[in-house]
C-alpha cells in the first residue's frame, strides 16, 4: 500500500513549491517509527525473559545471559536506536541544504491519505515542509541523535534498555509529526503523542511509585493543555471549515476581525495548549517532577524538543496571534512571569536536575516573551540555542549523576546522587564534562560570544522595543532583565557547587568517580561547539557591525530572521499594519549594541560574584545541611508551595466531588430512586396481599362486590 515511491512523493498539494523538491520526506518520519517497532519487539522479548526470571524467583534486573554475554535484545538497540536517528538526521540535512538553495515562499505539502473525511470535514494525513519545520526538524533529529548516542552509554546497564530506545524512537517520531504536520489535527497527533512518550519515559522506572506518579501528573496536566488545543481547533473549524494551516492562515485576515472575540478565543485556547506543553504558569508544575525520568530523556524531551512545542505552536500560528494583540500580550506576560518565577525557585534547589528543570521553565518563558511580542524568529532562535546548551547541561548533569551513582553504589552509600551538596570538586574527576558544562552555563547566562547571548539578548531587546506599543512590555522587559540576572546566578551556583570546592562525596567513594566514556563525552563536545557557535547565525546587522559581531567579520547577518521570513511574513505584515514597526531604542534609551553590552556585562559580573561567593562558602553534604528552616529560602525551596496549593484547590475538591457523586448521587439518589420504585411496587403488592386472606368468604365477598360494581356500571 505504501511503497517507497509513495513515501517519496506523497501527493503534492498547494501551489508553487518554488522548484523545491523534498527528498523522501515520509521516510524521515518512517525511520524513527521503524526503529520504534524494532526496538519495541526487542523490548517485549527482553521483558518477557525478565518476567520469566522474576517468576522463577530472580530479580529480573540482570541483563547478561548464563554465558555472561548480553543477549541480542540488549545489543541491537545500540545500533537501531541512534541509527535511525542518524539516518533521519542525514535526510533532514539533505533536505535542509536543498531548501537553502531555493526561494520557498509557500510550504511544500505532501499528502498521504485522507485521514478523517466526514463529508464536511476533510483532514488529510499530510506533512508540510517549510523553513520553520525544517529548523525544528534539524534540532530534533540533530540534538536527538546526540542524545540517543549519549543514552547508549548512560542506559546500557539498565534492564529496560530496548524499551528505552523504543520509547525514545517513538518520541522522535511523534515530535517530527508535531512539527511536520500540515494541519492542526496531524500536529495534534504529534502533540499528544509526545505527551504519551513523555509519560512513558518519565515513568520509565515505573517500579518507583513517585516516578510513576510524576509520569501520570505530566500526562494529566498536559491534557489540560490539549483540551485548549482541541477547543481552538473547534473554533477554527467553525470559522474556516477546514483545519489546514495554509487555508486558515491565508483566510484569517479576512474572516477574523483584528482583536475580535473569535480570534482572541482561538489564540487563548492555543495558548492554553502551549502553556501546558511548554510548562508555563500555571501548568508548569509537571516539568520539575518530570525529572524523574532518565536524564537523557530530560535532555531530549524536557529541555530540547517537546517542551518547545508550545513555542513552535505560537510561531506556527503567528498570523492568528498577530491578529489578537490581547492574546499575544498574554503570551508575553505569561512568559515573563514564568521566566522570573521559575528562576526564583531555581535559586534554592539542591537537586541538580531540579535546578536545570526550573531553568528550562524559565528559559521557555523567555521564548514565550519573544513570540509574544511578535519576534517569532527571536523565539525560535532562542528555542534552538536553548536546545543546544540545555541539552548539553542535562547531558552533563547526566554524566555527573552517572558518575556519582557509580561512586555511591560502590560503597552502598544511600546518599542522593543528584544532590549538589553531596558533590563538589568534580572537575578533577570529570574535566571534559566540567569544561563543556561551563560553556553551556556561560551560554545560558548570556555571555558573549556564546550562543545564549545572541538569542536571549534579542528577545530582551524586542520586549524592550515593544514598549513602544504598550507600557506593559516595559514592565515585562524589566522582569526579563531580572530573570536573566537570576539565571546567571543560579547557574553559576550550580556549577560551583558541583564542580568546584572540596569533594564531599567521601574518600572511598571518590575513588570511583570517573569521567564518562567516549560515547557520552562526544555528544557533550558537539553540543558545546554548537553552544558556542550556534548563536552566530542570527546576529542583527547593527550588532554584527559592532564589537560583538567581530566588526562585521561574521559571514551572515540575521540569517535566521530572513530564513523564517516567509513563515512569519503574514504575522509581520499584520503587526506592521496595526501597530507599526518596533522602536529602535529600548524603553530607557540606548540601542541594541549598548544593551547587549550592558546585559553581557551584568551577566559576567553576576557570574563572577556568585562564583566567588560560593567558592568562599563551605557547603555541607545534604544529610547535614537539611532543609532551610524559615524565611524566603524555605518558600523557594518548597517551590512557593504551588503543588500544595493546587492539591488543595483543584485535586482534592475534584476527588471529593467524585466521591460525592459516587457515594451520594449514584448510590443514594439514583439507585435509591430505582430501589424506591422497587420498594413501592413491593408495597403495593403487600397491600394487595392483605386481601389475600386465604378465607373463601373474603374472596366470595370480593367477587360479589365486584359483580355489584359491574352491574351497577350497567345501570349508571
Amino acid at each position: 500500500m505504501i511503497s517507497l515511491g509513495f513515501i517519496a512523493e506523497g501527493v503534492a498539494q498547494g501551489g508553487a513549491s518554488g522548484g523545491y523538491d523534498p527528498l523522501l520526506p515520509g521516510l524521515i518520519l518512517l525511520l524513527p517509527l521503524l526503529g520504534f517497532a524494532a526496538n519495541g519487539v526487542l523490548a517485549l522479548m527482553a521483558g518477557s525473559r525478565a518476567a520469566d526470571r522474576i517468576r522463577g524467583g530472580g530479580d529480573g534486573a540482570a541483563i547478561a545471559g548464563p554465558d555472561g554475554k548480553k543477549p541480542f535484545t540488549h545489543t541491537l538497540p545500540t545500533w537501531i536506536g541512534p541509527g535511525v536517528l542518524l539516518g533521519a538526521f542525514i535526510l533532514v540535512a539533505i533536505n535542509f541544504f536543498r531548501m537553502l538553495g531555493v526561494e520557498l515562499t509557500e510550504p511544500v505539502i505532501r499528502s498521504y491519505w485522507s485521514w478523517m473525511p466526514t463529508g464536511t470535514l476533510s483532514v488529510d494525513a499530510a506533512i508540510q515542509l517549510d523553513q520553520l519545520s525544517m529548523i525544528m526538524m534539524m534540532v530534533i533529529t540533530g540534538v536527538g541523535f546526540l542524545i540517543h548516542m549519549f543514552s547508549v552509554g548512560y542506559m546500557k546497564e539498565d534492564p529496560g534498555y530496548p524499551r528505552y530506545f523504543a520509547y525514545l524512537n517513538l518520541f522522535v517520531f511523534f515530535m517530527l509529526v508535531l512539527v511536520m504536520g500540515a494541519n492542526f489535527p496531524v500536529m495534534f497527533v504529534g502533540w499528544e503523542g509526545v505527551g504519551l512518550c513523555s509519560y512513558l519515559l518519565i515513568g520509565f522506572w515505573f517500579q518507583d511509585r513517585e516516578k510513576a506518579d510524576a509520569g501520570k501528573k505530566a500526562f494529566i496536566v498536559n491534557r489540560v493543555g490539549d483540551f485548549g488545543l482541541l477547543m481552538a481547533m473547534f473554533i477554527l473549524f467553525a470559522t474556516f471549515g477546514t483545519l489546514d494551516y495554509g487555508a486558515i492562515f491565508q483566510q484569517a485576515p479576512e474572516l477574523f476581525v483584528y482583536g475580535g472575540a473569535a480570534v482572541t478565543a482561538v489564540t487563548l485556547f492555543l495558548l492554553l495548549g502551549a502553556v501546558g506543553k511548554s510548562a508555563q504558569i500555571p501548568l508548569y508544575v509537571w516539568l520539575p517532577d518530570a525529572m524523574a525520568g532518565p536524564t537523557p530523556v530530560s535532555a531530549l524531551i524536557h529541555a530540547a524538543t517537546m517542551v518547545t512545542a508550545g513555542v513552535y505552536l505560537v510561531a506556527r500560528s503567528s498570523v492568528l496571534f498577530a491578529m489578537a494583540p490581547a492574546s499575544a500580550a498574554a503570551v508575553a506576560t505569561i512568559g515573563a512571569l514564568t521566566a522570573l518565577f521559575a528562576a526564583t525557585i531555581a535559586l534554592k534547589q539542591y537537586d541538580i536536575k531540579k535546578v536545570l528543570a526550573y531553568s528550562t521553565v524559565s528559559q521557555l518563558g523567555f521564548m514565550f516573551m519573544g513570540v509574544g511580542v511578535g519576534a517569532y524568529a527571536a523565539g525560535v532562535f532562542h528555542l534552538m540555542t536553548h536546545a543546544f546548551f540545555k541539552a548539553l547541561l542535562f547531558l552533563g548533569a547526566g554524566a555527573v549523576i552517572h558518575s556519582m551513582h557509580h561512586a555511591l553504589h560502590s560503597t552502598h552509600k544511600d546518599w542522593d546522587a543528584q544532590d549538589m551538596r553531596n558533590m563538589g570538586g568534580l572537575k578533577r574527576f570529570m574535566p571534559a564534562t566540567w569544561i563543556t558544562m561551563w560553556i553551556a552555563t556561560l551560554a545560558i547566562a548570556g555571555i558573549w560570544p556564546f550562543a545564549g547571548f545572541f538569542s536571549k539578548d534579542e528577545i530582551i531587546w524586542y520586549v524592550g522595543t515593544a514598549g513602544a506599543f504598550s507600557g506593559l512590555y516595559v514592565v515585562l522587559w524589566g522582569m526579563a532583565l531580572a530573570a536573566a540576572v537570576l539565571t546567571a546566578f543560579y547557574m553559576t551556583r550550580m556549577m560551583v557547587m558541583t564542580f568546584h570546592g572540596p569533594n564531599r562525596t567521601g574518600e572511598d567513594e571518590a575513588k570511583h568517580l570517573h569521567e564518562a566514556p567516549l560515547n557520552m563525552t562526544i555528544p557533550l563536545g558537539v553540543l558545546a561547539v554548537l553552544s558556542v557557535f550556534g548563536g552566530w547565525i542570527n546576529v542583527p546587522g547593527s550588532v554584527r557591525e559592532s564589537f560583538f559581531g567581530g566588526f562585521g567579520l561574521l559571514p551572515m547577518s540575521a540569517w535566521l530572521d530572513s530564513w523564517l521570513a516567509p513563515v512569519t511574513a503574514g504575522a509581520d505584515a499584520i503587526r506592521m499594519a496595526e501597530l507599526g514597526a518596533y522602536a529602535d531604542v529600548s524603553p530607557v534609551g540606548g540601542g541594541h549594541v549598548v544593551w547587549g553590552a550592558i546585559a553581557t556585562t551584568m551577566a559576567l559580573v553576576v557570574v563572577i560574584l556568585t562564583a566567588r561567593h560560593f567558592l568562599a562558602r563551605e557547603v555541607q553534604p545534604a544529610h547535614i545541611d537539611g532543609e532551610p528552616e524559615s524565611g524566603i529560602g524555605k518558600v523557594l525551596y518548597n517551590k512557593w508551595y504551588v503543588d500544595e496549593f493546587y492539591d488543595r484547590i483543584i485535586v482534592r475538591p475534584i476527588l471529593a466531588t467524585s466521591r460525592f457523586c459516587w457515594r451520594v448521587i449514584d448510590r443514594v439518589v439514583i439507585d435509591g430512586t430505582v430501589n424506591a420504585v422497587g420498594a413501592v411496587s413491593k408495597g403495593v403488592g403487600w397491600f394487595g396481599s392483605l386481601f389475600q386472606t386465604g378465607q373463601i368468604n373474603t374472596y366470595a365477598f370480593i367477587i360479589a362486590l365486584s359483580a355489584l360494581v359491574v352491574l351497577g356500571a350497567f345501570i349508571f
Partner: protein
Amino acid sequence: MIEILFYIFAAVAVGSAFGVVLQKNPVGSLLFMVATLASLAGIFVLFEAHFLAAIQIIVYAGAIMVLFLFVIMLLNLGHDYRRDIQVGVGMVLAFATTGLIAGILVRQFGGAETSPMLAAFPGPEGMDALLAEQGIIGAIARPLFTDYVIVFELTGILLLVALVGAIAIAKRRV
C-alpha cells in the same frame, strides 16, 4: 292455573332456598335444597321443559344431592349443630351486597317481556310449533347431536376427568 302453580312453586323455592342458607344442620340444609330443586323442576314443567324437569329430579335431586348426603354422613357432620353463620359486620355487608345485587337484577329483568330484543326470536308460538313437530326430546336431541356434538362429547370427557380426579383426590394415601 299455570300462574297460580308458578307462584306456589316460586314460594316454595324461595322459602326452601332461605332454609338452605339458614338451617343449622347440614342435613337440614340438604333437604331444603332438595325441596328447592323439586319446585324448580315444577317450574321447568310449566315452561314446557319436560325433559329438563325430569333430569332435574333424577340427576340433581336424586344423584347429586345424595352424593352430598353421603359425604355429610361419611364425614359425620350431621350432628354438628354449631352455628356457622357469620355474624356482625360480615353479615350486614353480605346482606347489603346481595340485596343491592338483587335490586339491580330485578330492576333489569323487570322489562324483559316487552323488550324489543325478544322480537327477533320465535317466541312461545314458535316454540310450541317446534315442540308439536319434534316433541321435547327431539327438539333437544337434534341440535345436541348435530350443532353441539363436539361440546357434548367434551362433556363426556369432562365427566370422565372429574371421575378420575375425584378418585385421585379423595383416595386415602397409603
